[in-house]
């Protein structure tokens, strides 16, 4: 390919580059600059440079606690998603193309097809004090009084897992669907039953899909805030909600920016570590 041709190829991606630069990079740089601004007593940003906002983020438990809480929640959600997605992906990958598989696939990605408001309202209907779950609990005698489900941490985990489940199912389905069926047959002729074949052949060979799914879900769960906010309320100790709180009620944009970047750095660092650990492990295993 001649250099001219190479540049000609770049022309095709230019609109996307311009789009991303204008709407993603510029605000990001602006936000980064803002995170070093001092504030006055009314939390309005002042000109100048200070590390004070980062100092607050890393010393005040209100902020760093939310980062740790977010990390723990994202890990929990990623684990739950992979565990729940695996059987679904297994069934999807094994079905031959047809109306049934299309239907299953639509069901699987339905959380992505519904708007966040509708979806969250669905959870409210289910989990509110007078909701379906509580009425069932009371009616069956499992509880005397309705439980406070809606603004609880478990409800946040459930709702976020629900939203992010497709991001685990899709890479897992691809990984499982790509497995050569003859490997299962070979394992069986060598004497391994279905369980052993699953554990020794299917699971190890689907690990790339597991890791991809887990990483996508993890990264998305680190930054998610609308669903936890609507289901769990503004008091949930998650970094995204704390950023929202700083912007919407405290009006401290610089500290919100600093917390945002701390969250971004933590997400990048942990995904890199997880992906790196997997690659090292995989290389040791696969040579």
């Amino acid at each position, binding site marked *: 390919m001649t250099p001219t041709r190479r540049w000609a190829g770049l022309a095709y991606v230019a609109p996307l580059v311009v789009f991303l630069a204008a709407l993603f990079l510029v605000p990001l740089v602006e936000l980064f600059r803002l995170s070093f601004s001092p504030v006055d007593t009314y939390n309005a940003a002042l000109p100048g440079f200070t590390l004070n906002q980062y100092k607050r983020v890393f010393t005040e438990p209100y902020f760093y606690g939310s980062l740790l809480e977010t990390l723990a929640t994202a890990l929990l959600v990623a684990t739950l998603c992979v565990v729940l997605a695996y059987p679904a992906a297994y069934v999807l990958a094994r079905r031959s193309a047809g109306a049934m598989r299309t239907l299953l696939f639509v069901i699987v990605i339905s959380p992505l097809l519904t708007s966040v408001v509708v979806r969250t309202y669905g959870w409210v209907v289910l989990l509110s004090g007078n909701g379906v779950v509580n009425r069932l609990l009371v009616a069956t005698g499992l509880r005397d009084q309705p439980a406070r489900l809606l603004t609880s941490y478990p409800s946040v985990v459930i709702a976020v897992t629900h939203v992010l489940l497709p991001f685990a199912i899709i890479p897992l389905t691809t990984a499982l669907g790509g497995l050569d069926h*003859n*490997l299962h047959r*070979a394992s*069986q002729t060598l004497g391994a039953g279905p369980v052993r074949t699953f554990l020794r052949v299917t699971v190890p060979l689907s690990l790339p899909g597991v890791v991809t799914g887990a990483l996508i879900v993890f990264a998305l769960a680190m930054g998610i805030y609308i669903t936890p906010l609507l289901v769990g309320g503004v008091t949930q100790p998650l970094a995204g909600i704390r950023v929202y709180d700083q912007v919407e009620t405290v009006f401290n944009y610089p500290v919100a920016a600093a917390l945002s970047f701390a969250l971004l750095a933590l997400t990048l660092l942990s995904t890199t570590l997880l992906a790196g650990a997997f690659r090292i492990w995989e290389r040791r295993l696969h040579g």
Partner: protein
Amino acid sequence: MIELPEEGAGHVEIEGLVAGYEGARVLDLEGLSIRKGEFLSILGPSGCGKTTLLNCVAGFVQPTAGRIVIDGTDVTDRPPYRRGLGMVFQNYALFPHMTVAGNVAYGLRIRRLGRAERDERVREALRLVGLEGYADRRPRQLSGGQQQRVALARALAIRPAVLLLDEPLSNLDAKLRGEMRVELRAIQRRIGTTMVFVTHDQEEALALSDRVAVMNGGRIEQLGTPDEVYRRPATRFVAQFIGAANVLEGTVADGRLDADGILFDPGPLPLRPGDRAVVAIRPERIRLSTHDQGTDGQGVAGTVGYRAFAGDAWHVEVRLANGRTLTVQVADTGANSADPPGAGSAVVAHWDPADVIVLDTGAGGDTGAGG
């Protein structure tokens, strides 16, 4: 050590095996008896049911009727992992996340063999296929031929009662395929394991096997030694599938078989005037001459329609006066010999009466499916 095939010792007995969906029988076998230590090929075109038959024996396809007995035990209802068979696949199906040794040891681990015995058996199996130095390699670091040898070692390490091979050489290039064929036969002779080899390649089946089962439409058309199925094909299908014979139909008149103007000496067959018969003649048994050089009374005149050089031989198509074509194969005997007549030449095709294969006789002239 060589275990000689014992006559009549039914190592694998298949009885009345039917498989397929309602209305579409993929497989409909009366019976097949595989002897201990033999190399049996199942030969047929794609869709003839040969792979389904193998999958029934392996346990991957549940037959709708019939029995499969291995070493006196009915295994029809046993899952594949309780049949004690080995299997080699066309695409090797090696576990990519294990080393060569790990692949070969897989079945031995499941059998909970002690480490020392396991290592010894892995070494032995790799030695058998000539890959001793490759134990720590990964499958993807090996060539196709090496991968298939690992697959063979893996299947043999568990010392299976029967080794099933599903087109194992089809993914290899022609040269390697030839080498692997020789090697596979040598290994089989050495260890004496009963092998059932599925292929669509007639040359492969003839070269490798003790016996060949020719399948068509879910049935076995003929079961016999390679020279039996080649020299004495039982049906029109076998004659045409193996060696692509010219098949002609005719009626007996004046002590001769008249197939649309081509006259055959019926030989010792008890043919009466008016009987219909189907005969076959191999392309390589037909001789061509440009003049009528005395054709023993047999033979037919025609025009060369098409001539192609295939390296060791020429393929010539002769159009006869009655509109039929005969396929003729003329061996290329060297630089000093003349090429066969080119397209458009008038020729006479003739043959030795002994080379005419009578496939079917009777009033109907229909070919029956026999076993």
